[in-house]
């Protein structure tokens, strides 16, 4: 069963789109269940001006892409860099055991984003 955050984000995935002028791309795959998420970013002046995503996978992973984008869209890179695991932990709400791999994916996405920002 899905919690409200997950339902809202997979049934109305506002950030599911492509960016023409992406400055960066983050990609992630889960080798076990085959979920894939690709996030395109437009970063300018230390701010994530735009974040969009595409995904292929279970409902929770589709929601995860949208949750990720909604949290980083418009955020300052410095704020992203200062985030830690605890901030991310509750973003998807309460999950069933079968959905936990999506939280792992979300953590990975933030890690990758932090890395992307760091090396910029």
């Amino acid at each position: 069963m899905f919690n409200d955050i997950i339902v809202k984000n997979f049934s109305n995935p506002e950030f599911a789109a492509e960016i023409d002028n992406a400055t960066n791309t983050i990609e992630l795959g889960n080798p076990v269940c085959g979920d894939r998420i690709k996030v395109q970013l437009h970063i300018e002046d230390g701010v994530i001006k735009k974040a969009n995503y595409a995904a292929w996978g279970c409902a929770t992973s589709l929601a995860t892409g949208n949750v990720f984008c909604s949290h980083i869209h418009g955020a300052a890179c410095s704020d992203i860099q200062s985030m830690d695991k605890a901030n991310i932990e509750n973003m998807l709400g309460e999950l069933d055991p079968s959905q936990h791999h999506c939280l792992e994916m979300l953590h990975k996405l933030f890690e990758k984003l932090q890395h992307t920002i760091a090396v910029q």
Partner: protein
Amino acid sequence: MTTQGYFDYNATTPVCSEAVNAFINAVTQYANPSSKYGLSKTSNEIINDARAQVATLIGADTGEVFFTSGGTESNNWAIKGAFFQQLKISSTRNHLIVSEMEHSSVLEVCAFLEREFDCTVTRLKPDSEGIVSVAAVANALRPETLLVSVMMVNNEVGSLQPIRDIAALLDDRASQQKNLHDQKIHFHVDAVQAVGKIPVDVRDLGVDTMSFSGHKFYAPKGIGGLYIRQGIKITPLLHGGGQERGLRGGTEAIASVAAMGAAAQVTVNTLNDQVVYLAKYRELLRSELLSVVPGVYFHGPANKALQAPNTLSVCIPGIRAEALAALLDNMHGIQVSLGAACSNNKSVALSHVLLSMGLDEDAVKATLRVSIGQYTTESDIHRFVQAVVTGVTTLFRISKPASQSYVTTA
């Protein structure tokens, strides 16, 4: 509760009002049927009436119908019962033949016997349409074969198995060529997805034991039965007081038994009609989906007469059925079953039925099971197809770009 979004009749059915009323009437008859006083007479009559109703549904004599707690108990009883019955006589007749697409209550029993006892199990692959061939059964037979168990209708793709022909094969074998112990091979059939959905006649089929479950034909959950052909002996699974003619202990579940009897009665009266209109609805569903969902196709028998009239196994390439089902459920209140589901953090459970038919992982993950029943209406079908279109559109919007690009794993 509304049933307009319910497309999962193979998982379970709503309980019909006749069954509920029968339960309510019977539950006040509290006397234990095993007791010897007058008060027990009504309890016994209720059970006898229900047994007759169920016997009529499957073409059996009342003496051949045994009540159980459901399909799982019936399958466990028949297979373990045949195995332990034989164990007394000979421990060398220890070979079981089943299909790979059996329900877990058959497969797990076989795995248990294989693990704990000196016993070998042959698991037959069905063809790509989900049908086990008689030839495959014939090839698997050995002198030490004790039991063959093949389901009558598969729960996921609705494919009908050649039960009558397998029974004939085993009969032939018994008469022509004596096997190791001059004993007929026991033929068990899991008919849980058949009884109530298609006409079933045990005499005509020639099976030895046959399982059925009330909640698949509009009775409450937790009540079912096992047909045991007159003269066939199996060891009890529930040893105890002498109930069910000494073969299944436990105070009889009178009210649930009455409810299943009533549901059986309704089914006897309506089955012929149901079979016709459900097949019509299924074909409506098929043609509508074909016309609006790009790439959609269906698993199961090409010959539609070999498929349960209420079942459609739908594959939509390029999407995850699990995600579509979540959209259908949360946006439209529609219930379907899946070919695959994330079962925990580290694995995906892929349908063993679809895999046994040779489908690859992507196809399994893209498969929905749609099953309809007596409360399904034509407008439910239209509404369903509309919801699928909306869902697929959303999913393609999310996935199109990503699914086309190469993605490295984390």
